[in-house]
């Protein structure tokens, strides 16, 4: 806002912000017109994967029909245009998370591969037997298993910080687990199973006070809140395109340049080299050193379009809308007899995990599906979280920019039907 506009506004009451027009947002998502089992689709499985707006589909189609060729290779027009689109997407992502340089943005197949890249490249070259990696109970399997594999390879030790009955990380216990052998901390920004937001600022500050780098698994955070990797101080930040309205098969690893520069490549092939002979290969520079093989160019283009779309709606507006839905859903589900919400932390993203007395989550999922309501049921790739709460599974509803208050009511009404069937 210019100073002129600012002073003009100060003379009068501030105009109310334009209300969030969810029906207009819905019109941008073609799939939301679908009917499922004869009922309008109520898509509440956004923590598993979000739907794509028309703008993303158009951007991919434009790329595929107008400019596709292999990147970084040809001198011909299409290859140059494809390269510009791909590298333009990288710059778009840099801006979205406020990284310092686009060479700090590595394209991967998803958040899972981003974490594996750090484990295999940074981890294998920095960890020795007895060194420790500290994670939390709230992690997705993608932020557990890569460290267990690293443990097999290096003899490092995996430590796990506990949570309380609300799903809140016990920060003092976490701090106490940081020891002289702690070499890396890897924590989710938002728990995928419960929606609980972790105190990553405090985690990073505790870690950095001891000179320990931190990897943040941001797969469930970037769709719901503004993320500034430099303000957070994250050393690595991983997320997936398909959870933020972009295509599947693409993810991002942000890494601080100093760290990335010191890391060896983890996959070899084309694009990640400067020169190859049978005696000696010179690796490419950042970020391409970590991008062996032909990349998912159309995916990158689609993700860039998704980020443009989010910026147009305003991530703060999306967050406020989702928080309203979360509040409504929490109140409505608490009214359904037998429902127990798992994860009652004060700070949550728009994810609500629950169980119902007498009804297994799988049965809940099937009964809701018959009404066109899509939720996730199961352990959400977070079996240690289920074990902590001593439950085999939960049902999980997760909200996105296009969900409505009517959909929250449809969920609550359907749960009353489930209750009727099983009581």
């Amino acid at each position, binding site marked *: 806002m210019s100073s002129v506009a600012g002073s003009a506004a100060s003379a009068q009451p501030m105009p109310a912000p334009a209300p969030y027009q969810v029906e207009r947002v819905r019109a941008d998502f073609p799939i939301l017109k679908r009917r499922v*089992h*004869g009922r309008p689709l109520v898509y509440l499985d956004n923590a598993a994967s979000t739907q794509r707006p028309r703008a993303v589909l158009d951007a991919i189609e434009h790329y595929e029909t107008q400019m596709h060729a292999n990147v970084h290779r040809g001198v011909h027009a299409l290859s140059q245009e494809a390269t510009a689109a791909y590298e333009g997407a990288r710059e778009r992502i840099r801006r979205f998370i406020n990284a310092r340089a686009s060479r700090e943005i590595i394209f991967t197949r998803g958040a899972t591969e981003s974490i594996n890249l750090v484990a295999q490249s940074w981890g294998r070259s920095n960890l020795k037997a007895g060194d420790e990696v500290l994670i939390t109970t709230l992690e997705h399997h993608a932020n557990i298993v890569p460290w267990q594999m690293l443990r097999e390879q290096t003899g490092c030790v995996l430590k796990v910080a506990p949570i309380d009955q609300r799903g809140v990380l016990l920060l003092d216990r976490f701090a106490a687990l940081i020891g002289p052998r702690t070499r890396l901390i890897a924590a989710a920004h938002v728990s995928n199973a419960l929606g609980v937001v972790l105190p990553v600022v405090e985690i990073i500050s505790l870690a950095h006070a001891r000179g320990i780098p931190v990897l943040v698994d941001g797969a469930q955070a970037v769709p719901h809140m503004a993320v500034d990797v430099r303000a957070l101080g994250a050393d690595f930040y991983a997320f997936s395109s398909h959870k933020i309205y972009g295509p599947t098969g693409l993810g991002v690893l942000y890494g601080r340049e100093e760290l990335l520069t010191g890391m060896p490549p983890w996959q070899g092939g084309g694009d990640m080299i400067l020169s190859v002979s049978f005696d000696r290969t010179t690796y490419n520079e950042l970020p391409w050193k970590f991008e062996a093989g032909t990349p998912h160019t159309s995916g990158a283009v689609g993700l860039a379009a998704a980020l443009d779309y989010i910026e147009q709606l305003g991530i703060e507006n999306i967050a406020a809308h989702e928080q309203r839905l979360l509040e409504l859903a929490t109140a409505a589900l608490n009214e359904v007899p037998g429902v127990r919400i798992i994860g009652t932390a004060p700070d949550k993203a728009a994810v609500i995990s629950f169980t119902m007395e*007498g*009804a*297994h*989550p*799988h*049965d809940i999922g*099937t*009964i809701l599906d*018959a009404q066109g309501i899509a939720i996730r*049921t*199961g*352990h959400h790739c977070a079996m240690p979280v*289920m074990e902590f709460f001593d439950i*085999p*599974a939960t049902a999980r509803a997760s909200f996105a920019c296009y969900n409505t208050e009517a959909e929250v009511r449809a969920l609550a009404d359907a749960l009353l039907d489930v209750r009727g*069937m*099983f009581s």
Partner: protein
Amino acid sequence: MDLKDLYRDVILDHNKRPRNFGQLEHPDAFANGNNPLCGDRLLVTLRMSGDRIEDIRIEGKGCAISTASASLMSEAVKGKDRAAIRRLFDQVHDLLTRQDATPSAELGKLAALGGVRDYPARVKCASLCWHTLNAALAHEAAAVSTE
């Protein structure tokens, strides 16, 4: 899609009050089954009399389909010999997976599982108990998985 075809009254009843629930002390055979997708776990314990199941108990945690299927199975196989159980298994398998299967009289109450075939994601729930029973009968006292 009519949910009543999946959640028939017999299924809801056996889910709420599973028959032969618990564990046999000093069983002749047992097996653990689990379905990682839904977190279902099932323990089948058997007392044998030669080739015949003299007594059976089932215990575990699972969805309505998995619990009811195990309960119905426990009633159906008690007192039967291996050959008869094998025939039942084949018929249940057909019932769960083949659209053209028509339940025979031999299936009895197990025919209530006929709605499951329209819900492919739930077939594993209904079949877990049978795979676990087979493992117990084979004296494979190791965990089986339907994944």
